[in-house]
């Protein structure tokens, strides 16, 4: 195991394509900013949450692997690690949301708050300074341990000792707990408060479950890319993809479980302040989005992922992953967008080209940075006590 697993050189090709996409997406979105400022910020929020979800999901999965040490995780450890190093970029990309805060959130508009007693009651939590302070805290909670673990992982490569290994495990447990806490409050701040009257205590868990789906839906295509090239082509085996497929299936089921639990409780309770969430999402065009979500985010991937043969076929599995990645955006859009229309008398579904261009802009930028980070380190850690087991033949 003294071989160094240098990343394949054609990552650069992907990287330059990502830069190109970033340039186009950002240019178009900038145009949109001047044409329709409100729409720009609203589209931007959903796109930013989508890419943030991938990065945070990868972070959480990396922590989970650090704790449980399955063979599945070692093969993608460095690919996950690279995603955790994109968090500073995502913090930078948070700035436009701060700028457009009052365009996005009702509670950030003083005149709206003055007219709404419920929001006034919540202003101890929903206020500009609190929002910013908390966001800073979330990023500190996520980036701090991520930075530490990335540094230690590198040190572990240099000096083979199991002290670092043990200490990384010791950091991962509290880091995972803190991640969940921060993500819960972040989900309230960034998504739930779009509709400041509505609340659901499952929301944070649902947000976290979505991250996990995002992480696997993203990392499977990356693993497919790496598995097709030297030096990892000899290391990846069908059983690794089998494991990723199983985990993806598990998280898809978890996501469905959260969604259904929330639906059953709110539908049965039938309280006016709660059930509006589902009423707006089953009217007009939104009904079709809801159905699309049920089919695309659950039924279809569920049925496909039950097949053992499909899970062991990296290419087919990657297709399912891509479908789910698209569905992740649909899910976030479904959660956020009906709230935007609220109050302006338009409940219907209004897709805008800015939804696409901000996705491409942020995505291009994020992927360019991601592939840059992926290139920086060997694809397998040099010292890892379980490495031999992980790459062993079936």
């Amino acid at each position, binding site marked *: 195991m003294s071989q160094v697993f240098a990343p394949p050189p054609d990552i650069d090709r992907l990287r330059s394509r990502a830069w190109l996409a970033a340039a186009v997406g950002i240019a178009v979105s900038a145009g949109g900013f001047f044409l329709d400022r409100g729409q720009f910020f609203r589209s931007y929020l959903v796109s930013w949450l989508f890419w943030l979800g991938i990065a945070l999901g990868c972070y959480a999965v990396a922590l989970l692997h650090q704790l449980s040490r399955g063979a599945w995780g070692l093969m993608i450890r460095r690919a996950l690690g690279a995603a955790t190093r994109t968090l500073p970029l995502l913090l930078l990309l948070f700035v436009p949301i701060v700028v457009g805060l009052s365009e996005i959130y009702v509670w950030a508009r003083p005149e709206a708050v003055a007219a709404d007693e419920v929001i006034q009651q919540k202003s101890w939590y929903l206020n500009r300074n609190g929002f910013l302070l908390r966001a800073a805290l979330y990023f500190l909670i996520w980036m701090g341990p991520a930075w530490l673990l990335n540094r230690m992982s590198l040190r572990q490569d240099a000096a083979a000792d199991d002290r670092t290994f043990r200490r990384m495990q010791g950091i991962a447990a509290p880091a995972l707990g803190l991640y969940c806490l921060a993500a819960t409050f972040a989900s309230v701040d960034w998504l739930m408060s779009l509709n400041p009257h509505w609340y659901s*205590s499952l929301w944070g868990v649902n947000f976290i479950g979505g991250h996990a789906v995002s992480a696997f839906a993203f990392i499977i295509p990356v693993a497919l890319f790496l598995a097709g090239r030297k030096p990892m082509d000899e290391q990846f085996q069908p059983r690794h993809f089998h494991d990723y497929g199983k985990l993806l299936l598990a998280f898809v089921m978890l996501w469905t479980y959260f969604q259904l*639990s929330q639906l059953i409780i709110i539908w049965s*309770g039938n309280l006016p302040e709660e059930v509006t969430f589902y009423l707006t999402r089953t009217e007009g065009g939104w009904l079709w989005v809801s159905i699309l979500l049920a089919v695309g985010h659950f039924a279809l991937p569920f049925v496909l992922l039950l097949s053992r043969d499909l899970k062991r076929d990296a290419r087919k599995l990657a297709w399912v992953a891509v479908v789910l990645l698209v569905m992740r955006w649909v899910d976030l859009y479904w959660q956020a967008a009906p709230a935007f229309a609220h109050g302006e008398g338009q409940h219907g579904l209004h897709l805008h080209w800015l939804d696409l261009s901000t996705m491409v802009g942020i995505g291009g930028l994020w992927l360019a940075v991601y592939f840059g980070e992926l290139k920086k380190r060997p694809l397998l850690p040099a010292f890892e006590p379980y490495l031999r087991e992980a790459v062993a033949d079936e």
Partner: protein
Amino acid sequence: MSDPLGKAPIVAPGHTAGSVTDKISSIVFERTPRWWWAAFGASFLLVMMLLHSLTKLLFTGVGIWGINIPVGWGFAIINLVWWIGIGHAGTLISAILLLLRQEWRTSINRFAEAMTLFAVACAGIFPLIHVGRPWLAYWLLPYPNTMELWPQFRSPLIWDVFAISTYATVSALFWYVGLIPDLATLRDRSVQRWKKMLFGAFAMGWRGSAVHWHNYEVAYLMLAALATPLVVSVHSVISFDFAVGQLPGWHATIFPPYFVAGAIFAGFAMVLTLSIPLRRLFRLEDFITLRHIQNMAKVMLATGLIVAYGYMTEIFMAFYSGNQFEEFMILNRIAGPYRLYWWALILTNVLAPQAIWLRKVRTSPALIFLVAMFVNVGMWLERYVIVVTSLSRDFLPSSWGTYSGTYWDWSLFIGTIGLFLALIFLFIRFLPMISIFEMRTILPGAKGNPE
């Protein structure tokens, strides 16, 4: 942990398929140890107490309990949820850990499954007796009747009927299927003819042929894959009993996942409570090693944190909601008439398990046992707080009331603990409490490939 990577053996070195078989089956064939009689006798006395209370209840009615208006749901539902929750760890150890290929589950799964079965049996008593006229409990089932009535499927109480009966059935199937090859082993080890006949009848002629094993393994995996979502659904349905209502403190969307986590938490605590003394008494330290105890303790800690997360979310959402009833509910829990229960709950369920972070605690079965006992109590308190504080003070102050259990409430509850223990003692006496055939598979060289 002895080695730096935490890969301590799950079976002490030196064991072979033969020695594993002999050691575990010998517990069934040996003379009954004296302590067994004492332990079984004590739990049997509690069973007698249970029967006494049940008789009194049947002749007098549920008026002997502490329930009143507004607290119409008292010990019966608290105990139901407590017992069902305890059962869940058994299914989880068997099913989820099997799917995750965690070989350490092998020494504890049989035992944990039996625990599930007995816990569900204890749980099942309460919904039956709380209906007031248990001899009419079959009215809950959908069947064609002369009154042309049908159940109302929008109610979580009918969901309970389906969920709990399915759970009991599937748990029993899982447990029995797991036992078949071991029953064949006992049949072949038995000396007396009647024992041979008895074990043989239940082994159904199992021969261990390659065809048998193949279908068996596939069926067992399928059962595991079915039991996993089932377990999640069962405790979610239990949580719906509360959550689909509109009472503050009950109507919260976080309930299903947090109830499921609480169930696993309670269940692992109970597995630890039982396995730590039993491994000593039967000298099974070779099979139930410190690694098992530690792994279970870690699962207990992790699920305990999820439960704590649930408490925190409830509190935060109550204040975030801007709903005065929600806020009052939380303040009432913390500082109202039942505050002692709430603070005891925080101590036992949230603070006590944090001791497992300490290496010193993790390496001492005695200390882990202590923590598990705290959790056993804490999970009962949790349900007490949820049921009683919410019901006793709802929207209208004029309809507020107070609640406390009577002697009959307590005797029924403690009686079911006796029933549970009595069943456990019978099980460990007459059946192999560790899966023998699965233990053989985790020995070195078992897979038939050269090591």
